[in-house]
């Protein structure tokens, strides 16, 4: 048991160090996010009232897209240099190691993503309750996005056309999170309680945390067999 936890911690630390070393990989999704929000703002046009209504949706969609682009970093380089095969051979349970990798990836990417989202939301002029709803749903939602994204990433790692295929697979699975995240923001804008959406997101999160590592581990085993 101790060995397994040690192995998991080692994997997590190694991945975290690797993610943080590649500053460029951390910054690019943030820049992409800002560009998408800017495109959205340009497209909606100067009407401030309409923009205020749609801005929460735009922010959430940009978060989804930025996360989807970022998912490659989870398994691709390890797949290419053979580390995944080493993990498969390790005596520690693979779901635990996969969970550590997902955790490290989430730590490295979610922090900047949530921070920039809140900043952008404030800059776009969204009101207090809406921004707090955004923060709450992002904090609950980003683990779900990372965990479910790991399944799709594991299924498509190294395939030709992998990034597009990964996006095609993952976006239907992301839709419930998107629906509840934006519903919470719309309710917050109307001064309605958002507890229902928070509960749903928490439920999705619990399901994701308990099941996704197993699914992703099985997917890696299948792809590397």
């Amino acid at each position, binding site marked *: 048991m101790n060995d397994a936890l040690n192995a998991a911690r080692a994997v997590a630390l190694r991945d975290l160090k690797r993610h943080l070393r590649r500053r460029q990989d951390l910054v690019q999704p943030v820049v992409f996010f800002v560009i998408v929000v800017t495109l959205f703002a340009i497209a909606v046009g100067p009407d401030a009232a309409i923009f205020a209504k749609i801005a929460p949706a735009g922010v959430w969609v940009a978060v989804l897209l930025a996360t989807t682009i970022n998912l490659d970093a989870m398994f691709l380089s390890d797949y290419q240099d053979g580390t995944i095969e080493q993990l498969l051979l390790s005596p520690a349970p693979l779901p635990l190691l996969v969970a550590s990798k997902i955790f490290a990836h989430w730590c490295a990417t979610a922090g900047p993503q949530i921070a920039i989202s809140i900043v952008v939301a404030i800059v776009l002029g969204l009101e207090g309750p809406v921004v707090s709803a955004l923060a709450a749903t992002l904090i609950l939602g980003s683990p779900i996005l990372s965990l*479910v994204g790991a399944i799709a990433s594991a299924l498509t790692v190294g395939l030709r056309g992998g990034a597009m*295929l990964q996006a*095609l*697979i993952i976006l239907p699975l992301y839709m419930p999170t998107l629906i509840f995240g934006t519903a919470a923001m719309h309710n917050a804008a109307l001064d309605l309680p958002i507890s229902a959406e928070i509960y749903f997101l928490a439920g999705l999160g619990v399901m994701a945390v308990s099941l996704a590592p197993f*699914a992703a581990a099985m997917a890696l085993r299948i792809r590397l067999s």
Partner: protein
Amino acid sequence: MNFVPFHKYGTPKYFYSWSLALRPWLGGACVLLFIAGLIGGLFLAPTDYQQGESFRIIYVHVPAAWMSLFIYIVMASAGACGLIWHVKLADIVARACAPLGAWFTFLALFTGSLWGKPMWGTYWVWDARLTSELILLFLYLGYIALQGAIDDRRTAARAGAILAIVGTVNIPIVHYSVEWWNTLHQGPTVSKLDAPSMDTSMLIPLLIMALAYNLYFVAVLFERVRCEILEFERNTNWVKELTRDKGVV
């Protein structure tokens, strides 16, 4: 009880022969049911008080929607069978289900949209049921894309099985969406335990059409599976015997 003698019926070779023997019966029954359902739906069922004749779209919309959900469950179950017990036929069945499921989902969305215009005044609305059915279509397409991208059939089947199982969570969402959320789409009328809220003369053709769609699915699925079997088992002796017997030009 000794089940081993039954196992041979799940092999591609035996499946090919018994499903081929079944084909005329399935096809015939299917055609008869379609005729009965269409006569019942288009002629015998009375005009609806509120919706007029447009309600007759129900006879192509609801069966297609039921099939879109049912086929996904079949696909995920077959995938699970192939994953857990390494049954080759299960892998082939799962792969063959996907395009059919996608087509039925498309039909459900398309005919539903054509029904929505006269009934609700709009072709589309982003309510829970329509959105989750659309998500189902994307799940099917993603599954087909994933299987197409992996070259080795065994790996593709197993990877697809994982995806199908993960996506199964959407099925109860589609089904219960009209109960859990306030939606524009009408609530459940046909349930397993309660008496249906639809008049019998309208309900019977619907059930007949649903059965027709089901038999259609089984017949076409078997056809697709037979094609896959022929394609990938073409180097085995029994396939060569098959073509020799048929004396095909």
